[in-house]
């Protein structure tokens, strides 16, 4: 851990919140991609059968 | 074209929404501000230009969704779109009618409300002038926003979200002109810049608004 001195709170919160936001958008992207893909696969399968 | 304008005008007057509501809203906003910030006249005088401009802007916003909504609902907008007049001209006339029913009364009422807020005497001329030059842009930008949201069921809130950021340059220059004028500085630069924005808006936005209308009428 580097010595952050008296600004530790600011620097750490900047990194913390930024990483949280990045993780949030990545997760949202991946989860929605997966959900849409599954539903599309199901719909395609229904069409194939019917 | 002129028939269209007068028709819009009579409709607005008959419905009573245009003139009355906007002005009443402007008045209420101005009356509420001292309750919020305190009755210190010096302080009120300092923030008066900004308050008056923001109040006028919000009052303008109130009646925007009516610009096209009624005509869209009863189908006359379709007729206008297929009529031999260019849709850009229709948009222009609609914006003009909106300005006459809201922007113009607001401009005329502003000095009275300036008294309430203890605006410096030097500021009144600039206030009226800047509103007269700036509110046409507000109406035109508003007509563009109304054209974007005309087909939507609950377009009103979305309309404000779309239009308010577009109002930023006009608001900045308008309020700046008044506050400079009120404090005795030279106010022509912001005024000229704002007039430039208004002219550019009037020249270009009818095309964007007409395009948006065509998309929505498809």
């Amino acid at each position, binding site marked *: 851990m*580097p*010595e*952050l*001195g*008296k*600004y*530790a709170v*600011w*620097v750490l*919160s*900047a*990194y913390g*919140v*930024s990483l949280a*936001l*990045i993780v*949030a*958008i*990545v997760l*949202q*992207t*991946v989860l*929605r*991609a997966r959900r*849409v*893909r599954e*539903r*599309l696969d199901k*719909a*395609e399968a*229904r*069409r194939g059968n019917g | 074209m002129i028939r269209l304008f007068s028709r819009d005008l009579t409709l607005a007057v008959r419905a009573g929404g245009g003139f009355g509501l906007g002005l009443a809203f402007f008045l209420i906003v101005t009356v509420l501000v001292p309750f919020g910030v305190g009755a210190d006249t010096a302080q009120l005088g300092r923030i008066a230009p900004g308050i008056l401009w923001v109040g006028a802007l919000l009052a303008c916003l109130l009646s925007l969704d009516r610009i096209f909504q009624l005509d869209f609902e009863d189908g006359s907008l379709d007729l206008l779109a297929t009529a031999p007049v260019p849709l850009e001209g229709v948009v222009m006339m609609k914006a003009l009618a909106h300005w006459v029913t809201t922007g113009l009364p607001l401009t005329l009422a502003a000095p009275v409300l300036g008294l309430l807020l203890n605006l410096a005497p030097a500021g009144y001329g600039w206030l009226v002038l800047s509103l007269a030059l700036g509110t046409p842009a507000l109406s035109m930008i508003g007509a*563009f926003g109304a054209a*974007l*949201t005309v*087909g*939507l069921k609950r*377009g009103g809130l*979305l309309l404000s*979200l*779309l239009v*308010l*950021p*577009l109002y*930023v*340059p006009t608001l*900045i*220059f308008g309020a*700046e002109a008044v506050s*400079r004028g009120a404090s005795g500085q030279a106010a022509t630069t*912001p005024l000229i*810049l704002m007039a430039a*924005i208004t002219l550019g808006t009037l020249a270009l*936005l009818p095309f*964007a608004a007409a*395009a*948006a209308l065509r*998309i*929505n009428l*498809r």
Partner: protein
Amino acid sequence: MKRMSLWEYANPKKFMATTNVVLPWISVLAAICLVVGLVWGFFFTPDDFRQGSTVKIIYLHVPSALMAINAWLMMLVASLIWLVRRHHVSALAARAAAPVGITFTLIALFTGAVWGQPMWGTWWAWDPRLTSFLILFLFYLGYVALWEAVENPDTAADLTSVLCIVGSVFALLSRYAVNFWNQGLHQGATLSMDKEENIADIFWYPLLVAIAGFVLLFVALVLMRTRTEIRARRLHALQMRERMG
């Protein structure tokens, strides 16, 4: 061999096939660059003699601010392509980019605030740059809201494209207006953030890597989201057909 044109990628099938191959590589590269750039910046760079350890915020602040603006530019270009050439992938890519742009704008605003607090003694100053970013944020919100509000996908694509173009002009106007306004109010109280100009190499290289990481992250996210939008639209079409019987 047939000459490949860039427009080939505007075909959804072609786009899906290509991105299917490319996307994992870009994602991995983005992750590597981000981790290397940020770890390098956070752990292995010295403190600035004036700013102390807060200088480490630069590795988040500058790349995110850069990408927040570039995301809007990308949306503008994609909107123009959609309006002129009617390529669906283009419209969907613009839609896909907006939430990513919002995220980067938020990061830039937040890191700016926590950097400004210890350095300038205030969380927020109505400095031209900060204000412009806040306005950019509002434009993003309006754009996304319009996409969500309009039901017909083609109408939504058209309307948001028009909004994006008009919005770009007004965003630019606001930038200059804000400059004017602030100088008019607070003479002399300029908060310059132009550290990029005289930044030392030791900060510069990790910053470059971090910027590369943010760019790649943006590309990866937009590609993935565009793929999702294409699938969602196909799903929508299938469901409509099912309902029709």
